[in-house]
């Protein structure tokens, strides 16, 4: 096939074009899916390696010439159509409008507020600096309790000049009793906020992290109700059918206590690296509010009962978006933040 012959023919036809319809036909004939260029490419496979190399270069040249020719004739046709009008190129790039992004943890928080809000839960925010009493003693964790070891604490200095020891809350549960002291049941609240633990950092631990606490107290609230509520919440958050399971756990401020696992969102429970082949992801701790906690808040513990839970929103964000290092959340790295 003589490509220069074909090119010559195309140039001739191009000169005779009358309108854009004809131009489109011409385009199809030469550069379309079943056009001359395509034919030339198909023919390549029958050649020897040496020939193929040579013919390949010729095809490249042929393609360039054709493309230029067609672009030029198109512009000419356009120009004659819009004679007297300003040339306008809609393909030029848009004006860059700066696009902001919300923080992934705040995005999860917002969704949680929306879901729990539609179930009638109020959003409460408390103090991050609180007393030893509210963080520990009021939650049935006295001074010598082993559970204090598991929550290594940042203590604030100059305690000799204060009436009580102050600390950075180790969990959002520290807000339970202050809230219950000034509200009468029934109530249902969520408490999102930052918590702090004195511990070494790695890809899944940080000394500062974001929790969401939940508390629901009424006359007849049960474990069955807790399951009902969290099932719908996680289905909404992950936007799919999610299974949850409860297994025994231990927290001094709930009784019974349990850990909640989520069927792995990545492998749907078949086992993968995310769930360490178990099919389940540990998602939060929960339980039925301990009578001593109700006593701390001066509530009549025989009349009221309910559940409390606490989850790390960073953990949920990590599962939802496949983030593999918790330290990215507070890095301020725009390459990370701009993805959400």
């Amino acid at each position: 096939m003589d490509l220069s012959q074909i090119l010559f023919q195309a140039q001739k036809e191009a000169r005779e074009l009358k309108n854009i319809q004809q131009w489109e036909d011409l385009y199809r004939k030469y550069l379309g899916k079943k056009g001359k260029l395509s034919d030339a490419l198909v023919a390549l496979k029958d050649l020897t390696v040496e020939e193929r190399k040579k013919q390949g270069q010729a095809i490249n040249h042929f393609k360039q010439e054709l493309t230029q020719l067609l672009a030029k004739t198109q512009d000419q046709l356009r120009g004659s159509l819009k004679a007297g009008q300003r040339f306008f190129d809609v393909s030029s790039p848009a004006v860059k409008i700066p696009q902001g992004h919300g923080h992934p943890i705040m995005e999860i928080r917002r969704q949680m507020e929306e879901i729990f809000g539609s179930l009638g839960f109020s959003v409460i925010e408390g103090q991050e600096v609180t007393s030893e009493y509210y963080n520990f003693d009021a939650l049935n964790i006295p001074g010598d309790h082993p559970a204090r070891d598991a929550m290594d604490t940042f203590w604030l200095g100059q305690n000799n000049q204060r009436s009580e020891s102050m600390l950075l809350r180790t969990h959002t549960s520290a807000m339970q009793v202050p809230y219950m002291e000034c509200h009468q049941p029934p109530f249902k609240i969520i408490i999102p906020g930052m918590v702090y633990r004195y511990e070494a950092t790695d890809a899944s631990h940080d000394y500062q992290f974001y929790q969401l606490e939940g508390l629901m107290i009424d006359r007849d609230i049960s474990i069955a109700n807790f399951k009902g509520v969290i099932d719908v919440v996680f289905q909404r958050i992950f936007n799919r059918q999610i299974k949850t399971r409860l297994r025994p756990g231990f927290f001094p401020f709930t009784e019974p206590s349990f850990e909640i696992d989520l069927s792995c969102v990545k492998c749907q429970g078949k086992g993968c690296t995310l769930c360490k082949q178990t099919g389940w992801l540990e998602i939060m701790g929960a339980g039925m509010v301990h009578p001593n906690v109700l006593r701390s808040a001066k509530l009549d513990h025989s009349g009221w009962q309910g559940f409390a839970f606490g989850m790390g929103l960073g953990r949920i964000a990590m599962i939802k978006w496949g983030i593999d290092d918790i330290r990215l959340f507070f890095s301020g790295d725009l390459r990370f933040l701009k993805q959400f």
Partner: protein
Amino acid sequence: MLFSFNWLKQYIDLTNISAQKVGELLTLHSFEVESIKKNGSDWILDIDVLANRGHDCRCHLAIAMELAAILEKKPKQHYQNLTSQKIALARGKLRPINIKVQSNKQVPRYAALVIENIKVAASPKWLVGYLEAIGGRSINNVVDLTNYIMCEVGQPMHAFDYDKILALSPEREMIVRLSRQGEGVVTLDGVERELTAGILVIEAGKKLIDLAGIMGGQVSEIGPETKNIILQASCFDGPTIRRATKLLGHRTDASDIYQHNIDPNLADLALGRSIHLLKEMTGPVRVVQKIDFYPEKKIAKQIKLDLAQANSLLGVELSRDKIIQILQSLDFVVQKSNSGGKSIVVLAPTRRLDVVMPEDLIEEIGRIYGYKKIPAKMPYINLALPEINQQAAYKNQVRRSLINWGFNETINYVFTDKSSSLALPLQNPIAKDKICLRMNLIPGLAQNIKNNLKYFSAIRLFEIGRIWCQNLNQNKQLIIHEKESLAGVLLSSDGKEPFFLLKGFVENLIQSFGISDIWFDDALAKDESAFLENDFNVRALAQIKIGDRLLGYCGELRDFAGSIAVGFELDLDVLTQETISERMYEPLAKYPSSVRDLAILAPPETKVGQVLAEINESNVLELVDVDLFDLYQGEELDDKKNLAFHLIFQSSKKTLTDREVDIFMAKIIKNLQEKGWEIRR
């Protein structure tokens, strides 16, 4: 903690049940099984025993009992069966040991047996096998026995060489007491340990022979030469042991159990079981003395359980029989019920130190029945609107606006290296550059910009977060203030003055809260906040005010070579308080407006704000708006400033005539000329 599957099978029939199935059942009903690994013909389960069962479940028998309850099977051997043999006392040649417990608060029970003529030898194969399977090491039959009993029934034990104690104390006196500062002991691992005060120790002849509940001393160690032993199965106070392990920086399997408190009655089981096994291993055993310091015997606790409460908390309808069956399967004794079968009285075994109230029993019922079988049910409750959280709603509004304007939300760590008398210091900072809580958000954001410069030339960031400071009140007590703050920073590369872009964002943001009387005042060096000096270029720094109230700051940031970064920080509490959420509609103007231009030539130091204020104060009610549309300063104006404004006049009562507007203009011009500004025509 490691458990051997074959070992568990000693106590419960697990034929046709795989180790994997056992792992799953334990995870769902008792404790999480973290791994299951093959070990020859055995499986090793790594079980994460919960902290509230540390006192009774760190042993094979207890895990087997859990499985028995879960599988609804009778255990092969019961606690009671294990101690069926009474310990018979024999006459011997050894003279009795005198135990003196000086700190009985820390020692609820001290029990031990003095055994004569024991043959110390290598352990039998089965014993070595079990110990090694769970990561232990065989030493000799006596020491291995104590370790085996601990892993079997959960009672830590220790064996002393009788004759070595006799050598130290001819009066054969052993004193259990708390250590004094500076005492020392060489423990079985050969480490010489210097003690602080308050660690529980055992002394013989002025020499320490044991770190009670943690590790024995080398001086009374069992060796091949040992003939007579003192076999101890005691109960020590958990918190005392836990404190001691922290003081020593040393823990052992024994202290891991002791620190949770243990059942003092367990000693009987452990001692009976050891004599039984010793006989099996070495033939007849002569127990010549029983030591038992046990001032207050622990008895089973009675708990009344309301069956309706149990079902209400679990959210199921379990029959009375089912509840009783579950409790009995866990060794609880159910006594005759009263109140017409609506409640039962339950005796908890003394080893269940964790069960003290009805809710504890309900947990036992729930987990053995299976949380899986409890159906998910939405609660039936009265419809009620959630409380309005204005602050949270405002924060979301701020977030939405800033994100729409191209700002990226960030969250920074709250610790800083900047200390001041107002900053809150940490008692135990995690690093040298993290000694205080932040007092402002701007420094963190400025750092974010620097870190991002490598990849981005245009940066917009904001953060909403807590800041802290403290001061002394009248009673000389430190009062902590925690506030919610909002800050934003902007770095642009387009060469325009970024301060005014940021000012525009700040104005828009504040106006979106219905606040109109905001203005920007010069921030002076006297402004107390030290952070202003550190982080802002005071040359271009403004106070943001609502009326007389300070809302925050806005200005150029220090230290950005090449490009100018600007930032603002607002007190969100003030913003929330000043917000006007109720708005009224204003009728649309009925009559057209007229626009006149006005150009003023003023000295270079004149501020636009001053001129605007004067125009507005000319007492012309019909002047509804003033816009600056041109600002020029140049040599040909003798360095004076040319300011050009659009003045918009409108009346709500009629269409203004040219003549009327001329009069208004004249009034305004006169006022400005009185201030010494030149009007350009």
